[in-house]
């Protein structure tokens, strides 16, 4: 990190309930989140100097379309597409712009309307040599699961328990797409998607939006009684490895988190709450290990002993995560940040993590051959 950077804080957050919002336009979907973030920050839409928007499949210029209907047209707008890391990438760009002093007030937006695709697996690029041979995203994660179960003795019940925890947390989140609890039996008995993954081990198709307002930390108290500092921001891209690769090690997440921890002077032992990219059950287990929350092969133990559940030492995905809260691809990064900021502000009601001081968000994704994933963005927040 540049030593001349100013400290930056989040002073406003907004999110809409994730779900199937086919009847809305993208700007209509995003507007409540934007308005709430502005209101919380006590800034006028006319004070926003730039918009950083993340969306993956919701059409060109999502940022401009939303700005048109929220009184912010005309300012510089940066539209970011980085698969599942789109709005976290947008947040990072906003953070850099404020930190370096180029602007003082930035709006970050994440928005996605997956229902316009009609459901099913995400449409991947047919030019890709794996996609054109039958690869789908659940298949990629399923092969990681197959190998992880083989190498470490993990079971289908271990995988299903991730979904059970996610749904337990999600049942406490009124903004979650799926707000009901489930059981290991129900998860394992649901429709097969890509063995060993069943339907309830895959994030649902849905629509959603989230927004945040950033400003320099020295101005933050004027805007919010509980501003939350950005302690660190890191973005990594996949390394092209055409040969053998251990699919149980999400290399991009390992690298991105290590570099961020070093930059920020914060370690996994310092984290009070985490939102990670649990697009499929196996992902959360692999990310416990990749983020340094436990040793290789110990993820099922960490899950079962309650460490990562609400009430545990470091609750993971108190929002319900992608599995329960939902995964409108481009919106997920910003949505995770809204959750972590509100956790650190003590505003999360029945799913509140007691006295949370430091939180981490982690998104990664993008299915394209030769990479673990295309992009990974990790952020640290503190009060």
């Amino acid at each position: 990190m540049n030593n001349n950077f100013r400290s930056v804080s989040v002073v406003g957050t907004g999110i809409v309930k994730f779900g199937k919002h086919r009847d809305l336009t993208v700007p209509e979907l995003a507007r409540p989140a934007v308005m709430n973030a502005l209101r919380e920050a006590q800034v006028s839409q006319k004070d926003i100097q730039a918009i950083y928007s993340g969306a993956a499949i919701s059409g060109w210029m999502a940022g401009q379309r939303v700005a048109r209907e929220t009184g912010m047209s005309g300012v510089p707008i940066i539209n970011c597409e980085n698969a599942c890391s789109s709005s976290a990438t947008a947040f990072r760009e906003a953070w850099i712009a404020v930190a370096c002093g180029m602007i003082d007030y930035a709006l970050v937006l994440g928005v996605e309307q997956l229902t316009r695709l009609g459901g099913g697996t995400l449409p991947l690029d047919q030019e890709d040599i794996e996609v054109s041979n039958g690869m789908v995203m659940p298949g990629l994660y399923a092969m990681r699961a197959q190998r992880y179960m083989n190498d470490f003795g993990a079971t289908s019940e271990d995988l299903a328990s991730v979904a059970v925890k996610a749904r337990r947390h999600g049942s406490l989140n009124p903004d979650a797409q799926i707000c009901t609890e489930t059981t290991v039996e129900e998860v394992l008995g649901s429709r097969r998607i890509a063995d060993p993954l069943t339907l309830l081990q895959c994030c649902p198709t849905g629509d959603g939006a989230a927004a945040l307002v950033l400003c320099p930390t020295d101005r933050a108290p004027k805007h919010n009684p509980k501003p939350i500092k950005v302690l660190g921001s890191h973005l990594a891209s996949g390394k092209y490895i055409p040969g053998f690769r251990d699919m149980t090690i999400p290399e991009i997440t390992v690298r991105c988190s290590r570099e961020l921890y070093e930059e920020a002077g914060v370690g996994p032992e310092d984290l009070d709450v985490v939102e990670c990219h649990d697009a499929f059950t196996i992902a959360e287990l692999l990310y416990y290990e990749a983020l340094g929350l436990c040793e290789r092969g110990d993820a099922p133990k960490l899950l079962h002993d309650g460490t990562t559940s609400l009430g545990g030492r470091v609750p993971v995905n108190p929002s319900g995560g992608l599995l329960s809260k939902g995964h409108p691809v481009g919106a997920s990064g910003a949505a995770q940040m809204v959750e972590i900021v509100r956790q650190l502000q003590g505003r999360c009601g029945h799913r509140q993590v007691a006295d949370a001081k430091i939180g981490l968000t982690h998104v990664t994704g993008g299915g394209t051959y030769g990479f673990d994933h295309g992009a990974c963005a990790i952020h640290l927040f503190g009060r």
Partner: protein
Amino acid sequence: MTSPTPKANHKIQSAALQPHEGRTLKANEVVVDTQGHLLLNASKCKDCDLSVFPPSAVCPNCLSENQQALRLSSSGKLYSYTQIHIAPPTWVVPYIIGYVDLPEGVRLFGKVDAKSTEVLKVDMPVKVVVTESEGQYRYSFAPQG
């Protein structure tokens, strides 16, 4: 040819009505050995030794154009696999996919020719089978033993 009708085919334009059979190999990706067997052809960088499939005229690592053909073995190990039950409309489900590691240091992705995953195990030996049909070449993996 009796092919299962893909689900939801009313959405598919007539040009794409055929069920998806998998990626067709380009001419420089297939070679015939002296016994007439079809094999896959990769490339190896003479400068940094990186092997890649599909073959590339330029090394994706060091950008050298000094590339040699690399004939890939037809025997490998199944690194991982899964049976797919949901896929885009032109694919007929279920089907099995997997990654196969070859002695040349190349990992291939493709369909596994098996009725069920019950006969499959991680690290089991497989054959890379290249087939020709109506002038189009494809490969898949046949489990051994």
